[in-house]
């Protein structure tokens, strides 16, 4: 059993090192909404179905490379996001939308193209650092008060190491597997943090 634990630990450390190298060399793989992209807003002159616009966008830009959103509260703007929308692709989309709805979209007045900058992974994570740090300190103080008989190593060192190891492992796995960074990146990270402190607590309670 002890050997299995050691093997798992070594594998985790190796994955963390590989992950750190990957982050240093290639960075993270950002999802479309978090990477540098272009947004093409089409100001429609008549009612439309957003799913139909999505079909057209997927056809022209590729399914994995496109997000389509409603562009205003009145539902008169279709907003297409893609890593890059070339002049030719814009013309294609306009032509297909015109054919679909029998309208005449004016490229100069009805289309607005903007570039969205890439999100910064540190910006996404930084806002979570302070609450997680404060929580960790209070939790460790609680462990020391509540489980002081088990010693400092079991109360502070092991739980803290577990937290650091698992957090680093999570980030490394994301970097290595090239899973896209999106809203769920931070949410899953915090979820893993909570599960780890809960695991630490249950383990200390049982001992």
């Amino acid at each position: 059993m002890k050997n299995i634990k050691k093997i798992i630990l070594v594998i985790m450390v190796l994955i963390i090192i590989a992950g750190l190298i990957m982050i240093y060399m290639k960075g993270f793989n950002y999802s479309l909404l978090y990477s540098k992209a272009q947004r093409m807003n089409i100001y429609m002159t008549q009612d439309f179905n957003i799913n139909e616009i999505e079909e057209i966008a997927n056809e022209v830009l590729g399914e994995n490379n496109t997000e389509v959103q409603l562009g205003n509260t009145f539902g008169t703007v279709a907003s297409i996001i893609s890593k890059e929308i070339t002049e030719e692709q814009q013309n294609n989309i306009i032509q297909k939308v015109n054919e679909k709805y029998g309208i005449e979209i004016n490229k100069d007045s009805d289309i607005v193209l903007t570039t969205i900058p890439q999100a910064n992974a540190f910006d996404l994570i930084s806002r979570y650092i302070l609450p997680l740090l404060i929580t960790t300190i209070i939790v460790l103080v609680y462990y020391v008060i509540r489980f002081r008989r088990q010693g400092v190593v079991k109360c502070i060192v092991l739980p803290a190491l577990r937290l650091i190891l698992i957090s680093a492992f999570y980030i490394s796995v994301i970097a290595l597997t090239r899973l896209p960074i999106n809203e769920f990146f931070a949410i899953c990270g915090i979820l893993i943090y909570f599960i780890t402190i809960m695991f630490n607590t249950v383990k200390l309670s049982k001992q």
Partner: protein
Amino acid sequence: MEKKLKIALIILVMALIIVISFGGVYVKKLVAYNNSIPDYNLGLKLEGSRVAILKVGDHVHEVIYDSEGNEVDEIPEGADESQYRKEEVPENSEEAKTKENYKKSKDIMLERLQSLGISDYEVRLDEESGNIFVELADTEDTDTILADLLASGKFEIVDTNDGTVLMTNDDLAGARVLYNTTNSGVSVYLDIEFTKDGKQKMREISKEYREVEETEGTEGEETNEESTEKTVTIKINDENFLSTHFDEEISELTITIGSASTDSDAITQYVEQAQFYAALLSNEEMPLEYETETTDYIQSIYANSIYVYVLLGIIALIVLVSIVYMIIRYKISGLLSSIVYVATIALLLIAIRYISAEITLETIVFGGLLALINTYVNCTVLKSLGKSESREDVKGKIFNAYLKVVDLLIIVLIASVVFTYNSFSAISSIGVILFWGILTIILMNVLFTRTLLIKSRNK
């Protein structure tokens, strides 16, 4: 008989909570029936947001110089125009358009959003063009917030008469909003604090710029009273904010915004105004002028997205598996616990609507974690019972089971309190859901699960 009645009553209460939570309470208003339970308050990522692209300003200002090279506002009427020189000056010089200044502008905008207490936002920078992408919740204040971000934040105290600059942003330490309640209502103040050097400058200015300087003639002569009022003008964003003189020596400025009022709308307006200036003066002056390139409302990709249904489906699956497991494993006790288990979720869903907790993707995910904690607590209690038949025995075992889970619940409560007080809504929403979730689990377990398990015993 009394025992069965109590069990039936508790089950009825649980059923009522479940029906109210998932069905609602419909009350007739005018001609239609409306659900009187409030709606869920959806967050930015689930509803929609305002997306703005702010670009580095490229306008050109016309600056007029007189024959001596001094800058003047306009050529005086009838003056010889050839004596004046006009120059076109870009609002942002090419030298100022650097990556450092782009980054500094973004950081100042982030700090302003924090100072304004905005709870949900995203700011990104295109380091090449300097364009800044801002995403905010779409509310009635969004346009005002965007305007606040574009303000230069330039602060100056100048001599009203000759325009000599007496103080600048470099002398500022920060600004805050203060309130005072008097008989005439609530007064709102903007309190401007200065650095150590700034305080010294302020003291000197307040000594020099007094209300009236009286010069009396010498004895025997006719008394001469000359009133020479020296005032300063406080300029914010290059606009005159206030011209004033001082009655006493001061080291910080406290400016009344509006007048004392009892009208809540007026007070709110004054507070917003004061917060705007406080946010500007608490942070540095923008190194570049920015302007809005585009601003659009964008519906969330999660608004009708399969992701949300998948997440809700996972929570439903956790609940279903937990219930089936408890019923199969612990029979009647498991069934009774399951009823309270579902009612706990139902009660939590009512609570989060009444406290207007923001529903975000985070809330949904952590709802799943709460379902797991609820399962863990219930299973620990049920497991501890064993084959106990006596009520006294069950009471003792349930108490011991609670001791086993109490640390876990306290730890999650601690984390939830820390998270709740975070200014960023995605984090505080996690804290709120966990705090109310843990409280609901404790309350329902101690009040109902425990009672049902004890009452279900024969002896």
